[in-house]
């Protein structure tokens, strides 16, 4: 199952990468990321005056020799980076050729694997809630350490999608639930009639560094069904009658571009990274090329 989600070759290449955080880690758990907290790493951070009770091992005796005053050497505390992956598993993600959800799982797996290899904490939020694979979702909720990577990928591969999603609500709740803000990766098609602004706004407001990956199927980017159609929304059941022909493809493309542009502008205005990916895009091209170029990973 792991092999089908990500190839061993790709996993080997992913091991050499790490998630690039533009902010210091705020987690309370020790890790390998620099943080504002002072601790016991090898990285010197600052001095402060000695006060009674301080550990004498951290006194800078050379400085005492020159100034005859006691200063304590402070080191940076290295903490872990909480990586929170929001994975859209709604009904709309089950469409496309290749299926959008499969592609989204691969992206989530790749980012999670990079994070786990970098000793970061990976928390995957799969929405909407489904009773059928509640155990899997719980297992994906908090994953630490490289040795958990295989289990993480296995659980991810076992996930199923379905049901209507509320993107705003899911993102907002995910933002609130997080004890520490970190890196948030939102993988969805963003085709929620209720919008995405509140959810993404909540993540940014909570202090997350947000990376948005919009996954659309080739059929959505360039439809191949023509004629007199009655379209039924897979999530809401809403019906839309449309007469569509090849001559209207250009207009449709413009509509899609406008929608994507709006989302991209929204993200940029809030310091979030945005990526549009067709589900037919090779996963290594997205992760090893586009995400590296955008310095999401490095």
């Amino acid at each position, binding site marked *: 199952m792991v092999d089908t989600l990500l190839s061993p070759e790709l996993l080997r290449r992913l091991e050499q990468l790490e998630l690039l955080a533009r902010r210091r880690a705020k987690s309370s758990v020790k890790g390998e990321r620099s943080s504002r907290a002072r601790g016991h790493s090898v990285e010197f951070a600052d001095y402060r005056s000695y006060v009674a009770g301080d550990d004498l091992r951290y006194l800078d005796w050379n400085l005492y020799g020159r100034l005859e005053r006691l200063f304590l050497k402070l080191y940076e505390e290295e903490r872990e980076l909480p990586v929170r992956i929001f994975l859209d598993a709604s*009904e*709309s*993600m*089950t*469409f*496309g050729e290749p299926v*959008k959800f499969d592609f989204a799982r691969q992206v989530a797996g790749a980012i999670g694997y990079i994070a786990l290899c970098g000793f970061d904490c990976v928390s995957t939020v799969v929405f909407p809630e489904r009773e059928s694979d509640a155990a899997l979702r719980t297992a994906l909720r908090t994953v630490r350490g490289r040795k958990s990577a295989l289990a993480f990928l296995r659980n991810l591969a076992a996930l199923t999608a379905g049901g209507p999603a509320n993107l705003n609500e899911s993102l907002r709740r995910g933002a609130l639930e997080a004890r520490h803000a970190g890196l948030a990766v939102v993988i969805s*098609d963003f*085709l*929620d*009639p209720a919008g995405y602004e509140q959810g993404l706004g909540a993540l940014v407001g909570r202090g997350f560094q947000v990376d948005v990956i919009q996954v659309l*199927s080739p059929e*959505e980017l360039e439809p191949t*069904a*023509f*004629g*007199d*159609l*009655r*379209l*039924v*929304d*897979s*999530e*809401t059941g*809403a*019906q*839309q*009658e*449309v*007469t*569509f*022909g*090849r*001559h*209207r493809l250009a*207009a*449709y493309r*413009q*509509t*899609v571009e*406008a*929608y994507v542009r709006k989302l991209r502008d929204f993200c940029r205005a809030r310091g979030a990274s945005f990526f549009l990916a067709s589900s037919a895009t090779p996963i290594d091209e997205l992760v090893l090329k586009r995400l590296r170029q955008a310095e999401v990973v490095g």
Partner: protein
Amino acid sequence: MSFLAPTAFAFAAAIPIVILFYLLKRRRVVKLVPSTLLWQRFLAETQASAPFQKLRKNWLLVLQLLLLTLVILALARPFFAGKTAAGRLIVVILDASASMQSTDESPSRFERARREAFDLVNSLHETDQMVVLLASAHTEVRQSPTSNKAALRRALQSCQPTDTPTRLTEALKIAHPLVKDRRDAEIHLYSDGAAPDLTEFEFEGLNVVYHQVGRRALNVGIVSAEARAHPEDPRRRAVFASVFNASSNNVSGELELRFDGTFVETRHVELGPRETSPQVFTVSQEKDGVFTLRLDVADELLVDNEVQLASLMPKPVNVLLVTRSGGYLERALRVVPNLSLTVAEDIADGGANYDVVVIDDVLPSSWPAVNTLAVRSAPTNWVQVTGRVEAPLIVDWKNTHPLLRFVNFDEVQIAEALKVRTPTWAVPLVEAPDTPLVLAGELGRQRVVWIGFDTMQSTWPLRISFPIFVANAIDWLNPASARASQAMVRAGDPIRTPLSGSATNAVVQLPDGTKRTVPIDPGQREFAFADTARQGVYKVDTGDGESWFCVNLLDPAETDTTPKSELRFGRYARALATTLKPANLELWRRLAAAALAVMMFEWWFYHRRTA
């Protein structure tokens, strides 16, 4: 803009039906999609960018309504009453001769020609004028110049084909002064070209448009027929007929002879392509009557398949010969069969007791009132003698005239002849360069044969042609044979019969049985009836007893129904059959074309939308 058929706007009731179809739900293919969000935005954006949102949604409806409107307008036949500087003059000559009854065109050549003439009427401008001439044996002006299309259509509708030969020359001569000196005038001739006499007409650059009708010649007909006394037995009759096959196939059929409706004989006839077959029937006849020849063969022209021949019993002819010497003339008269000859030196009572008077170089005390053969006699009211001609040389003689049948003037010398001018009542049968030598004609009801030289002063009586001529002259002058020849009339020619003077009305029974009463003016000596367009037996009752006349086509040119694609006028000019069709000023054709274009666009648009 006006409409010729405004009732067609009733078809506008179809417009709500089209709209109704659009109100009905269209069958759509149901397709499950991840989300309709993008589609909703797509529809919202495309509609927002269209100036007419409602209409844009139903472009097909708009197109179909446009199509329907165009079709309804086309059906209503709008036209513009345009004003042009000067209208054209169009002379339509409709050939109504017998050959136009051929059924190779559906239903006939004449109807086809009439249809095309209707098309021409439809294409007329408001300022154009048209004349309708109906050309058969005589040309009738069915409509004088007018722009009134209804009147022109009525005139065309009233035209009927006849059983007569064509005389297109007469029609063209009538049309000529109308179109002369008018550059915008056109003569439109609707004919099959079966007209033999056009070479006599000098074309003079007339603008003739020849509309040829007829596709093929599949016809066999009787082109000549005659009933004569049998040469060897005067009590028997010989019926001659010539049957002509105008088609390019071998044809066989039956030729049937009847006498007064009683069957006499039938004969099988086989004809090769364009072959003429002479047929002779020998029949014994006991009384005056009508022979009917009927050709039973499958062809496309019926009119020439039947011929009626009047045949009168021969009667002895009483001839008074007024002569001093008798001689060769008396001998020649005595060998004429069935002739009772009286020889005298003068005429008593104007020769009223005789059928024919022969005056042989004498000046009688009174001129005869009966048919006369005059030799070298010159009453001034017959001919005007202007002098004498020594040894006149015979240069021409009309051997087609019945008088000169089998008569030859080779090696005939004449010592002297009277020099006269040809009078209006006569035709010259034998001519010398300076004077006619033999004249024949009718003075009122009196037939006269005039010989301008003394036969005894010529070598003519020594020739075999002399007794033949005398026999021919007696036959021609015999009132009974004249009566018999008058009973045979060609279709289109008038029927003539003498009147006793007391009749006030004549009743003519036409071949179809209808009777027509014609008033007779007091003092009228001859009754003439010209409406002989139909062949058959015409019975005329003028109060003096019923007489009958056989009207026949008997025209090889009409029987030869081969359509001619070229007409020759005069010696040099010719008119080719036009392939042009009249342009129509009405707009319906353009509207129909636009409707077709809209329909094709609508079809393309529909498939482009849904492809």
